């Protein structure tokens, strides 16, 4: 029998038909909307007189524009208010389950869907957001889509896709203490570039991936789009099943047992062929940080801003334009660079273990003078769980802002943004120019690096932080 990758198996199972134009119609098991794009799609369907086919498989979360200020409401971020209300109205008329601004389970869609068990191993998932593949961490196959495709899914429950190619990223060895999935992902993007996985669905495999807790796998899959990947996932294993068990939307009782038997078959065949393979030995990996204005401009934390002459010819022009924006010269060490702001949050790094790592670093210490530091939990559930174990008090005592859940400073769609010229260490996914505010200089890094840098007031290696006072 033909050896198949797990991607092939999931794709083939979900392929409803081949359209006349050669695109496969792929059934979408779970569809999650957010307010930035939902209203366009609702308006379009209404105009066309087309109903939502499967409202019962569709969910909506207010995340991109919601304020993080305690006590927030629809109007706290005035530029989000119309979007929030329009999605609420669209969900009401179309009978879609909405996690509204004040819902105890509101949060970033990519955090909420897996933590409630809305996404499942071997299931397909779509979100009108490029970081949809975050949920690949539980073995789901997720696609980011535009607004037209969003309307298409609402009307038909399928996506019309060209079959992507197979790629495997193999992470060998084991991550050292203080080094996380974020660091591994940044290193891979550095190696293969921002378009390195274009046209491919990536399966992340290898001993280092198997050893990762589910939340870390989600971080890894989240960053897949930053190397251009169409989707990315980790094949599910016992760790996945244990993580999902008893979450509210997963199958229960006998149906869970039946699902589990099926999910255990979800692996790539031993000799399945991949169109592309990339390997990284994680054993010697140190924490990674971006120095430039795209997520492939990365160095190890003990490294320096590269000399363009040492880069591949194709990357020199981008580097040269990044130096000016970032106010950095080739040869400048990253460690010790003074910073103004720290942001811990986003669909990349805002789950409970991310916050625990950061809290362990800041406990008993204080944010450096002049540095503004924020923690924004990935969901209201994460926030509640963090508060139950006192993390909010740790962060607040250290001088951090502790916010309500949402996308916040990742893209600044809710008004949370830095001031021009500020240097920010951020646990997010994009260091594009002006993304976190006009002229804000973003350095992407792990929660540990962000927390340590907030305390030091400079880019710091969490592994070498001076002992705290606690």
């Amino acid at each position: 029998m033909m050896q198949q990758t797990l991607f092939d198996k999931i794709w083939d199972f979900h392929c409803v038909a081949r359209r006349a134009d050669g695109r496969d119609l792929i059934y979408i098991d779970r569809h999650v909307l957010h307010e930035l794009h939902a209203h366009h799609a609702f308006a379009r369907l209404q105009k066309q007189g087309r109903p939502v086919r499967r409202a019962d498989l569709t969910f909506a979360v207010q995340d991109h524009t919601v304020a993080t200020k305690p006590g927030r409401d629809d109007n706290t971020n005035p530029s989000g208010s119309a979007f929030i209300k329009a999605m609420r109205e669209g969900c009401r008329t179309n009978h879609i389950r909405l996690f509204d601004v004040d819902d105890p389970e509101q949060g970033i869609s990519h955090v909420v869907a897996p933590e409630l068990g809305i996404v499942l191993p071997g299931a397909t998932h779509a979100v009108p957001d490029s970081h949809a593949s975050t949920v690949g961490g539980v073995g789901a196959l997720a696609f980011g889509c535009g607004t037209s495709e969003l309307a298409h899914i609402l009307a038909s429950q399928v996506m019309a896709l060209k079959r992507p190619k197979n790629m495997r990223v193999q992470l060998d060895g084991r991550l050292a203490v203080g080094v996380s999935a974020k660091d591994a992902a940044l290193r891979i993007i550095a190696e293969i570039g921002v378009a390195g996985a274009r046209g491919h669905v990536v399966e992340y495999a290898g001993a280092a991936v198997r050893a990762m807790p589910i939340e870390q796998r989600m971080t890894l899959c989240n960053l897949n789009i930053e190397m251009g990947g169409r989707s990315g996932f980790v094949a599910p294993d016992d760790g996945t099943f244990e993580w999902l068990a008893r979450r509210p939307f997963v199958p229960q009782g006998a149906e869970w047992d039946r699902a589990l038997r099926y999910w255990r078959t979800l692996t790539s065949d031993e000799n399945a062929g991949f169109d592309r393979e990339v390997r990284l030995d994680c054993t010697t990996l140190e924490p990674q940080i971006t120095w430039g204005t795209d997520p492939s401009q990365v160095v190890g934390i003990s490294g320096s801003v590269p000399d363009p002459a040492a880069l591949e010819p194709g990357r020199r022009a981008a580097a040269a334009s990044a130096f000016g924006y970032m106010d950095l010269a080739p040869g400048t060490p990253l460690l010790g660079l003074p910073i103004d702001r720290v942001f811990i949050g986003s669909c990349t790094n805002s789950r409970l273990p991310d916050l625990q790592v950061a809290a362990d670093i800041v406990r008993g210490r204080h944010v450096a003078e002049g540095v503004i530091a924020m923690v924004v939990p990935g969901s209201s559930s994460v926030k509640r769980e963090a508060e139950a174990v006192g993390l909010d008090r740790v962060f607040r005592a250290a001088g951090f802002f502790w916010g309500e859940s949402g996308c916040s400073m990742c893209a600044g769609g809710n008004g949370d943004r830095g001031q021009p010229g500020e240097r920010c260490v951020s646990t997010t996914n994009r260091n594009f120019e002006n993304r976190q505010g006009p002229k804000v200089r973003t350095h992407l890094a792990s929660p540990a690096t962000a927390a340590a840098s907030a305390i030091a007031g400079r880019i710091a290696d969490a592994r070498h932080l001076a002992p705290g006072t606690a």
Partner: protein
Amino acid sequence: MQPFIRHTGIAAPLIKDDINTDQIAPILHSRGLKEDYRAMLFHRARRREDGSENPDFVLNMPQFRNAGILVTGENFGAGSSRESAVWSMLANGIRVIVAKSFADIYRENCLQNGLLPVVLGSVTGEQFVARVVAADGQASFTVDLVTQRISGPGGPDLAFEIPAADRTRLIEGLDDIGLTLKHVDEIASWEARAQTVQPWLQSARDSR
């Protein structure tokens, strides 16, 4: 969707790789649902800090103000899935983007909206860029999707490839949802089959 058959217009060179959707269509803080897509396009590059126009940005130069063809580098449209990065092109009269390559989601969004994404081979691409730069907005190029050729000043016609299905969809301005809903019976039978073999996929209930 508005069909695309051919377009004759000024070609503007923005020769840079990895231009992302945050650059093309930054999130601006308007308070309404009706956003100004015309003003959104390359908003930060087009404006200086004091809000005045940046005269050095290519689309602000007098000869390129009405460009209908944007010529650019590798991996155009990287980043977010926001479709405003396509709508803002159309709102400015740009109907064709000629790039060395496109980010996957951006290219899909182009096809949904009748914005023609053209990829030229590296040799042809370099020739075309040189001709666009030499023309400097003084003469028009024609991009013809029927003949799959680009004609204009400075040399012979250049051929380009595009998957036949994408070409048909653009030329006929087909309704994508309509195409899919022709398969509605197959969608229904898939659902029935899934209900039998993986029933948990067909229900997403809160067990509490």
